[in-house]
């Protein structure tokens, strides 16, 4: 029995490459993996649609600074020539590389950067207009956008920040945590819009969660009080010899906490995008394998699943912003906590 089981499992591994080889032979077929990677990675142009083999894209500016040539600026549509090289620069695996090995800094406005600008404008517009309303007529009932966002702002204030940081210190961290909450939330939601203003995987790009986590690491340790540092270096009420094990762990955990925040946000958002795109790809995979009719047949199920996943992702978008804010508020809370036990 065990032998048969082993054989079955092992044969799965042997059969798989032959599928892979069959897929590679079919060059003009649909490649789901490539399509998904193309959608979740950053790029130098904003791809909107393919109509009858023609790519419809928005070209974005490529900005490069090199020591020899200074600042170079051109649109990414210049790469659409037979050699895909312009100014001695080409795109290799999604990164700009120089043909002759020249070193340069890439400060291009890529898809994610443009999406960041869009979300920035959106955030500024929403919150400056709301702030003005509160300033001008604070006595009147909130209306419009203000009425929609006031419960959420109060939720962040009363349910996240105040209980985890404490009555005395919470107002100091509130502006930052509110900004971060809405930044993550808006970017998650923009990522769920399939067409132009959204669709970039901003919070699912590891650089953005990394920057947020770094800010939290710095803020936590700058605000660390005596109790916080004592808990890191000399946990009170613990025998001396245990400290030799505990202190290294605590020091690692200072860096591990923001790292986990980063991975959680990145992986959640990226996984959501991958799952949705996989359900979409099923249509084309079945269409390639069994003909067009199978593709149409599968599309009904596939679209239903995609809509379901999109609804789930709407919850996840909020939940990840909530969890990120809550956990960073807890870290701040542990940093500013007064010793009283």
């Amino acid at each position, binding site marked *: 029995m065990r032998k048969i089981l082993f054989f079955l499992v092992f044969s799965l591994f042997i059969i798989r490459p032959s599928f892979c080889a069959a897929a590679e032979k079919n060059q003009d077929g649909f490649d789901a993996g490539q399509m998904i990677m193309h959608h979740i990675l950053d790029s130098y142009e904003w791809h909107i649609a393919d109509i009858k083999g023609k790519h419809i894209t928005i070209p974005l500016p490529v900005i490069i600074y090199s020591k020899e040539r200074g600042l170079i600026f051109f649109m990414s549509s210049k790469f659409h020539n037979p050699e895909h090289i312009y100014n001695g620069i080409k795109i290799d695996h999604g990164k700009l590389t120089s043909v002759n090995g020249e070193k340069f800094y890439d400060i291009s406005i890529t898809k994610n950067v443009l999406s960041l600008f869009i979300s920035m404008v959106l955030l500024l517009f929403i919150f400056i207009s709301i702030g003005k309303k509160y300033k001008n007529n604070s006595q009147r009932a909130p209306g419009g956008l203000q009425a929609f966002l006031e419960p959420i702002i109060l939720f962040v204030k009363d349910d996240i920040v105040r209980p985890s940081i404490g009555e005395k210190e919470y107002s100091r961290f509130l502006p930052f945590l509110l900004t971060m909450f809405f930044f993550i939330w808006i970017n998650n939601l923009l990522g769920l819009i399939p067409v132009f203003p959204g669709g970039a995987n901003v919070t699912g790009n590891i650089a953005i969660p990394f920057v947020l986590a770094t800010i939290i690491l710095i803020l936590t340790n700058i605000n660390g009080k005596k109790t916080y540092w004592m808990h890191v270096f000399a946990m009170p009420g613990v025998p001396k010899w245990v400290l030799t094990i505990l202190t290294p762990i605590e020091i690692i955990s200072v860096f591990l906490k923001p790292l986990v925040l980063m991975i*959680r946000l990145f*992986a959640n958002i990226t996984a959501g995008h991958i799952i949705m795109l996989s359900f979409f790809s099923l249509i084309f995979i079945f269409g390639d394998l069994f003909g067009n009719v199978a593709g149409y047949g599968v599309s009904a199920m596939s679209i239903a699943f995609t809509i379901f996943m999109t609804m789930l992702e709407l919850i996840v978008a909020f939940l*990840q912003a909530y969890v990120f804010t809550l956990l960073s508020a807890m870290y701040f809370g542990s940093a500013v906590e007064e010793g009283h036990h």
Partner: protein
Amino acid sequence: MEILLLEAASGLGYGVAALGAGIAALAAGIGIGRIGGDAMNAMARQPEAMNDLRANMILMAALVEGAAFFAMVIGLLVIFTK
């Protein structure tokens, strides 16, 4: 034969990555299931604490999910670094 073995070995990585993802999903399922079940239990016993319990339940589920996503990221790395 050698080529077949090589192919099998390259397929092994994908297979094990998939297996790892499966096990991680299983473990996360157990974890979230226990959190959800116990939270339901607690809510049935103390309906007045429902709001607190719900918030904590979602938070804990997100934390467990985070661990599962660690596994997913590693699985993805296995596939993409091949």
